[in-house]
């Protein structure tokens, strides 16, 4: 009787030690980067792509007709502030886990912009020094054009 009780106790202690060791090992493993709204702390992989990349075909002037500063892919899309550290918060990119294609224009976005007719801005003053217009295409094919994105901190791949 005593022998079987001590055997059960021994097994329980063994299992407890095993669980403890696993917990310690799990805690010691490297953690994924914490996700922060706006992708500030997310790591991004960035590579240059050709301006004729099919994904950029919905960006006006990608294949021809526009001066282009850079064309790139970064992943995940939600890490946009790792690529463009001074870019404003963009909830539509926070949800994007896959790679996005981006085109940085030298001058103002060349395609049509459908302004609010009550507040049409002065076209001649659309770009501010140190900023660029960027056309971004998400994995679902959605095109989003960001205006006046600060280039400070951006490193071309």
């Amino acid at each position, binding site marked *: 009787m005593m022998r079987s009780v001590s055997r059960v106790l021994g097994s329980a202690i063994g299992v407890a030690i095993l669980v403890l060791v696993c917990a310690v090992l799990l805690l010691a493993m490297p953690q994924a980067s914490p996700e922060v709204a706006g992708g500030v702390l997310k790591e991004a992989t960035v590579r240059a792509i050709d301006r004729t990349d099919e994904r950029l075909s919905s960006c006006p002037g990608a294949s021809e007709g526009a001066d282009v500063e850079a064309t790139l892919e970064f992943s995940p899309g939600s890490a946009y502030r790792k690529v463009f550290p001074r870019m404003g918060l963009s909830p539509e990119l926070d949800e994007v886990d896959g790679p996005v294609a981006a085109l940085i224009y030298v001058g103002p976005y*060349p395609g049509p912009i459908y*302004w609010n*007719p*009550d*507040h*049409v801005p002065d076209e001649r003053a659309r770009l501010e020094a140190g900023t660029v*217009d960027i056309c971004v295409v998400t994995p679902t094919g959605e095109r989003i054009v*960001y205006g006046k994105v600060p280039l400070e901190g951006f490193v071309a791949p």
Partner: protein
Amino acid sequence: MRALIAGTILAVSSTVLFGPYANANHNGVCVDSSAYNTFLGESQTQGREQGARAYIDSQALHQCNSPTGDDDRGTSAWVGVGGPTGATIVQMGIVRCFGLGFGYCDGSQDRVFAWGRDPAAPGCAGMSIVYPTGTNVGVAETSGAAREYKVVHAGGQWNGYVGALKEAAVLESKICWTPESVLYFTETQDRGDAHGGEATNHLYFNEARALDIEGGTWATQDFGTSCDTFFPLVNPDVYKCAVDAQDRDTMKMWTDR
């Protein structure tokens, strides 16, 4: 006195800006692709706007003629809600545009949904600027019955409809600004583009309605006796807009070169 001054400014501006470019056709020769967009129509403010809708004629819109074919241009007709800055708008409408390498701007006539955002708008501090550039959601008819175009706030989204079909939507989390107007208008990109229809075939916006409360009742719009004035000014001798005297929720636009 103010009307006299405004009229004088209009007349002088139209002569200086547009006189040399008018020609005998409904649509003109492409002039300046980097010119300002121009607008005809109505903007109405009546509270916390939650939707706008109107029937827009199904007819061909006419962009300018470019002898070399490489000039970007476009003409469109929209219903929408607008915020306090240029980029703050959600709109659904008809677009015909052209520009080499300009995506869907291939000269076809399309249904387009567009939305934008601006950190300068109250509620949007710290957000990025999104230009309302438009997403092509289908082909727009150039003949047949008028179709109802609508934007409406419902279910945590701003939705774009053509008839009963929801064609596009944007989550309200992306629209940080508060609407302050409902909009019914035509728009051009080039001074050679035509607004609306022709002198003998006007483009109509019929049965304009607006929604003040989500899920509430749509109210009939009263456009008053004349269309609004948008800036930059258009040549009133060429670009026309009129409110129907009997049905003041109806207006028509046309170009008479």
